[in-house]
């Protein structure tokens, strides 16, 4: 018999504060609804649900008519609503360290509570995540992405498939033998995923449909890239980072759907209109900032408003950067091959960029040269980087990027530290003090030239 746990409801005096950021574009405002819809549909529509890591393979789910739910997105949602802590606590109570990915901790805690109570946790936003019939992880970007779901079997007895995605080393990516080796492996891994999905869904993929979806995705990537690049280069900035941090959602979690394509077309039109008519965001754009690296602080996106009140705008963010345009040769007709080709080609392009900057990394996954590139491209006055306690994937390399920047200019770089979801790693007074000091530095540079 379980002991009922009764919490005394006390009047808690919170210093009223908005933790989310205001959105400047119509497209960004749409995203909240899209996200809510994603979760609602997973629970109500009766389609088979898959829990998926961001894998660059969303097209497969669309083509097979399965419903992908992305726990990492769900975790970010919990964080923006500041309801992630009970899930995090539950995961930590089971022995997961507080340095493990907070997306994972939220997902694990959620599943643990779900399994224990048999019900969707009370505080779960948007009706919770639908019950999956399969789970898909990949090794893209970081280790958590295949380890996390592996450990889910503690709570959810659902078949899990992990597959590999490898990026070639920058030095040798252009070589035909290397290309063949890497693309072959990525293709085999993707085929393995498809087999698994077909087995779980008890149906074979319709290749025509997949082709349609993949080509739609290719078009979507182009619009996404164009919109984002235009948003960053336009002066004044019509598309600040808080919007950008919302608008990547369709590309990551809805790629291949008609809605995603339409979304980026609309976004591009809106940005183009504003760019052409010099419509910015804040009234006086004093400083153009670059969010140089690290996932954003989902728990307190309102910090963007804080800097905007002081005349600074994050005109671009380097955490979610769209793939550049890739010309896939017509002779490649198999949709899976097209997917693999475009990922590989974009890796080569990243390598080329770094090469031009005089960098020749051994395993150029993040794109170490990105901040250096963006600083010129988007007329940046200062760079802010975000260290995350629980994300090795996007944190390691930031000091290196700062050094690369310093070697080329005297642009001020600020490091802020917190976590993407766990608000307990966030110290607002500290951030505000640092940001203010940083803006003062920028002010002094503007006045005195350095």
């Amino acid at each position, binding site marked *: 018999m379980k002991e009922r746990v009764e919490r005394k409801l006390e009047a808690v005096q*919170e210093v009223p504060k908005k933790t989310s950021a205001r959105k400047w574009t119509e497209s960004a405002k749409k995203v909240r609804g899209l996200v809510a819809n994603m979760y609602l549909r997973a629970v109500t529509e009766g389609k088979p649900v898959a829990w998926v890591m961001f894998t660059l393979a969303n097209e497969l789910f669309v083509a097979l008519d399965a419903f992908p739910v992305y726990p990492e997105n769900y975790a970010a949602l919990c964080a923006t609503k500041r309801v992630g802590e009970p899930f995090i606590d539950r995961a*930590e*109570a089971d022995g997961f360290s507080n340095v493990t990915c907070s997306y994972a901790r939220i997902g694990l805690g959620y599943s643990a509570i779900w399994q224990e109570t048999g019900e969707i946790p009370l505080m779960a936003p948007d009706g919770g995540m639908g019950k999956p019939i399969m789970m898909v992880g990949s090794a893209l970007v970081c280790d958590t992405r295949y380890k996390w779901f592996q450990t889910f079997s503690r709570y959810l007895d659902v078949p899990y498939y992990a597959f590999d995605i490898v990026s070639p080393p920058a030095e040798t990516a252009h070589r035909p033998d290397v290309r063949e080796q890497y693309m072959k492996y990525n293709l085999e891994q993707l085929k393995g995923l498809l087999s698994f999905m077909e087995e779980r869904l008890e149906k074979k993929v319709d290749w025509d449909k997949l082709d349609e979806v993949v080509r739609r995705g290719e078009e979507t990537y182009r619009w996404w890239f164009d919109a984002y690049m235009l948003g960053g280069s336009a002066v004044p900035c019509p598309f600040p980072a808080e919007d950008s941090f919302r608008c990547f959602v369709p590309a990551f979690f809805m790629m291949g759907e008609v809605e995603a394509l339409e979304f980026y077309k609309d976004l591009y039109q809106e940005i183009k209109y504003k760019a052409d008519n010099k419509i910015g965001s804040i009234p006086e754009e004093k400083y153009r900032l670059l969010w140089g690296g690290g996932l954003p602080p989902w728990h307190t996106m309102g910090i963007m408003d804080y800097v905007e009140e002081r005349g600074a705008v994050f005109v671009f963010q380097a955490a979610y950067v769209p793939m550049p345009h890739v010309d896939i040769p017509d002779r490649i007709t198999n949709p899976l091959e097209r997917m693999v080709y475009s990922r590989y080609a974009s890796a080569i392009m990243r390598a080329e960029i770094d090469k031009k900057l005089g960098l020749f990394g051994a395993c150029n996954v993040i794109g170490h040269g990105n901040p250096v590139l963006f600083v010129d491209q988007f007329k940046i006055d200062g760079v802010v980087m975000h260290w995350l306690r629980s994300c090795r994937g996007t944190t390691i390399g930031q000091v290196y990027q700062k050094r690369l920047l310093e070697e080329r200019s005297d642009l001020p770089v600020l490091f802020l530290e917190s976590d993407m979801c766990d608000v*307990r790693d966030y110290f607002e*007074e500290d951030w505000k003090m640092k940001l203010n000091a940083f803006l003062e530095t920028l002010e002094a540079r503007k006045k005195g030239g350095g």
Partner: protein
Amino acid sequence: MYFAGVDIGSTMTKVVIMDEEVISSIIGPTGPEHRRLANRVMEDALRQIGIPFDEIAYVVATGYGRINVPFADKQITEITCHAKGVNSLFPTVRTAIDIGGQDAKGIKIVNGKVTGFIMNDKCAAGTGRFLEVMAEVLGLELDQMGELSMKSRNKVKISSTCTVFAEQEVISRIADGALLEDILAGLHDAIASRVYRMVQRLKIERDVVVTGGVAKNTGVVKALENYLGFPVLVPEEPLLTGAIGAALIGRELTQKALESGQPIETKVRRLEAATFFK
């Protein structure tokens, strides 16, 4: 026969002397200059009951400074000793939570034996140190804080888990004009929350007993009960459970030896100061 337990914590030194029950106990501060003087505290305890040192059959030392007791026959960790001590006071205990001056522990207990434990000895938040720092910031005496916090009707949320940042937060809240008792309630909630999160890793079972210096703070105890969802037990003198357990273990070891006819290993000891601090 008499048995002694010496518990040298990072903040307080406790000595207990017992035969069938506790007959003498001393609690004194463990300053750096006192650490080598566990013998002094022992002398005070002996004087209280008027028995000479060599009538003590067995001495067990525990706590952070247990190696600094040259006259101890055995050194046992405070985890094992607390479990024993708490169990002797509350036989229904399954989970002990000890919140000391500089560390905090959770211990799972079955029949007085440890079955699992967790410790925080790295971070000040969630220990007595947290309250000490805040007492200074707020200009209060430590023993005022608990009662005063209970007067709050509108707890101020202190969200920082780090003592240093919590301090800054408190100062900001004072500047905002928040009431003292409301800030205190928030602080007590913060420390309880930290402790709760740590102990949660153990699968908490009732009855839960809270010990250590911070157990004297009713505000923290109440906040902890709020997180647990049920009431906890607190010994009359929450600082002594370690020393009691240590003495009990000494008694057990001696009795076992007597029953089996085996000689028990004790040290040839003199009641003197630890020599390695000169």
